[in-house]
């Protein structure tokens, strides 16, 4: 343990253990989240962070999506950072990154994952996944290989399948209903640290 014990106080560790889905051992040994965080911007992040700094020091969005290896190839990386950052612009503090990794870990229950998945796919933050949201999602996924007519057709099919109350977009409940019936959601919505 040695050096790593010095990066967090006992109190902090206990807080993290209570509020995330990681065990104490994972936070300290396996995850090395702090180290990763430092690697993104060594000039911004000190070796030992005090209580306040864990919240206040933020790493800008562009650096995160480039340097964090788990997010680099993800088409939704920008959106993920926006969702988990406190200011909504994508600048992540240490606690935000810990939060991110905790939600994507294997122990997080399905409900939390569904909630955050909904927030990620809701590009315009209007608490509904509308046709524009679906369009942006498709564009990001396919890297623009699909023609607009195909996209339109697919979007129509999705709305047709999932929309229950007929308002033309997916609310959280409808989204949850679709997702809970997908057997693969848990295994794909998972980042291994």
């Amino acid at each position, binding site marked *: 343990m040695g050096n790593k014990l010095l990066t967090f106080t006992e109190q902090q560790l206990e807080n993290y253990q209570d509020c995330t889905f990681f065990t104490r051992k994972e936070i300290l040994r396996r995850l090395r989240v702090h180290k990763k965080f430092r690697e993104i911007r060594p000039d911004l992040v000190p070796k030992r962070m005090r209580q306040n700094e864990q919240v206040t020091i933020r790493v800008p969005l562009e650096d995160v999506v480039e340097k964090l290896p788990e997010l680099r190839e993800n088409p939704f990386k920008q959106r993920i950072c926006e969702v988990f950052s406190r200011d909504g612009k994508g600048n992540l503090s240490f606690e935000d990154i810990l939060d991110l990794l905790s939600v994507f870990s294997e122990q997080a229950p399905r*409900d939390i994952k569904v909630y955050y998945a909904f927030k990620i796919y809701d590009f315009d933050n209007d608490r509904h996944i509308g046709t524009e949201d679906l369009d942006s999602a498709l564009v990001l996924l396919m890297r623009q290989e699909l023609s607009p007519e195909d996209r339109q057709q697919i979007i129509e099919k*999705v709305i047709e399948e999932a929309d229950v109350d007929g308002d033309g977009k997916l609310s959280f409940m409808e989204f949850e209903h679709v997702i809970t019936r997908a057997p693969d959601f848990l295994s794909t919505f998972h980042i291994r640290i």
Partner: protein
Amino acid sequence: MYRPTHRTPAYQPQNRMAAYENTIPMSERSAQSFDYFASVPTVSSLAQRSRSLGHEARSRDYGSERPNLVVSGMKKFTKAYFTGPRGNLDLHANKIVEKLEEDKSLMEDTPVSEQLRKEALKNLPQGLTMKRCVKSKLTKSVSQKSKRKPIGFWKRLKYSINISFSKFVASLKNFNYFELWHGSLKDIEGRFGSGYASYFKFLRWLFVMNFGVALLSLGLLVVPQIILDTSASNKTTNTQSFNFRNIFIGDGFFIETVFYYGHYTNQFIEVIPHLSFDMPASYFSVTVILYVLSFVVLAVSVAESYRRTFIETEGGLQNVYANRIFCGWDYGIATKEAAQLKSSSIYYELKELLSEELKDVEDWSCLVKFWTYTIQVVVNILVLVILAAVGWMTWVLMKKSNEGEIAVYITALVINIIIMVFPSLFYYISKHEDYKNPRITLYITLGRTYLLGAVILGTILAFWLIHAEGKNCWETLLAAEVYRLIIFDFLFSVVLSVIVDVGYFIGRYFLNREPKTEFNIAKHTLQIIYNQGLLWVGFLYSPILPAVVTLKMFIIWYVNQGCVRKLCRPPKRTWRAAQTQTWFMMMIFVSILLIIATHGYALKSVRTSQTCGPFKHYNYTYEIVTTHIEDLEQDLAWRVIMNVTKPGGLAFIMIALGILVYYLREHALANRDKVKMLKETLVWLAKDKKFLVQMYNDVTKGEINPHLRDNRFVDPSRILPHEFTEDVSSSVDEDDFHARFKKYS
């Protein structure tokens, strides 16, 4: 009129379907509006469910047993959370704490409610900072409010037992084997996707289980025997000489070592005076207990996997488009080329789906249908005939294998060639059968390959159990046969196939074609399952077999990993890991079930050899139990068990189980119909809502709610009677309101 319908009692799911219960959408569960904006009333239901402790363990449960606490992500919180200054953090933390305080069971000062508080905190979908704020406020308020009544002695004892138990379980979790090979698993997942990773996870799980079994059997069976052998008073020399061939055949020298049943003594081992070790009892109990433990572990995993894949998802894939988009991307991918391949695979799948839309219209003509069905039936009969032929040939080989050295080689060779070649044959056949769905083709091929392995193993077992009377030390010979098969299988499916793969790779490289192929997950998984089956068949008669198989799996891991990394490319089609995993687990479960049944029969009704082994002074192996427990024959429980395990009793149990399964299935179908009905109701209710909002707007002529004239706006699309009394401040911002309002004006 907008009160959501509560679950009608007539369709109340039973407790067994409790997991299913929780996937009913939130609108059914919460007592308030249809809203996504409902508060946290379900903490109380969490408390109800969480009566028993040991909850750290529950955090592995994928949310199926947790009620939906998520919805405390209220709009007013998240919006201000993103935009407001730090002062708002305090404000909203206070609001959350208020809601949580409503539940009495969370606010007590007992360890129970501490656990509940922790659970509630973890499930809160807020950022970490907010959670810490909430936690500190909560603990402060709890300590203020707690009335320090003295807890009685028994309660304290109960709490301390519960706490130490849950701490113990948590420490077990800390020891968890996820650490093993973690780095390489992550690498494979990042470069090739979660399909290949699922195969390796399965391998790792079986490896750990076998390792545990190997440790126990080595420690409790092999080591005492070795101690006895090496002690001065009992030196026996091996009558056979060691030959290198013996490693592969398991014959000769090894027959008289601790490898096989025959060498184990039936005496008490008393190397250290006054410390005697009852070998026969130990042999019997260790093997039986290990079998039962493996069975229990497998049963629990199969049940959990089945529940997760089939019950919670109502029988599999629907909503194909939505699934592809929302669950299609594998978030674990970490390399550029894997990401490229993934996005093209999603693209191809979507294109395929779109084109199938058009194809679906044309119906097959009657003649084509008839022809296809005939072909399928014929092919299935053909396959059954092939399997029967394989069984017969195995039987003949076993008969011949007792005559001479070469015959022994031939038997093992032939069996292994069959196991290597026939799956490809089945795959080729199934391609021509024109099944509607490529998944069905996959499942049929898997089923046939599995049956092949089962037929071979079954024939071997049956042969030895039937011919047990004539042979001397038949258990050792059976164990030697199994050992031989394991070693030859290792040679064929690991060594030989690596050579073949590398050869193909080089060949294609020189032919200027794409050298990297896909990794055949199904074939390799079945190979592991066959291996595991061999282990269970042989373990009863060869305590050292788990160690051998563990070593083999260790080697398989590294060999396959190397192959995947160097010779394979990521898959083109998405491998639906979740469902096929369940099928694999079920196959393994059925294997162990059948094998345990056969061994049970062997223990009960097959005479042991009188010249070797730890049971040579008994007629039947189970007599060791009866002689050790006095008057067992007169015992009621014993007599009940003996009668139940007769064929009549077993048949009765089977029929009862069948009826139970049929009943549950009918129940599930009835629930499905109910869901359909409820969906239609939802659609009608939404239409009603729109209509009534329109009417309301007409009546008020577009005026803001006349009751609240102090500039507090109410979102007209959210007008429900009870909401007038709720705190609606800062719930809608102006632009939002105008945008929605415009729609209805």
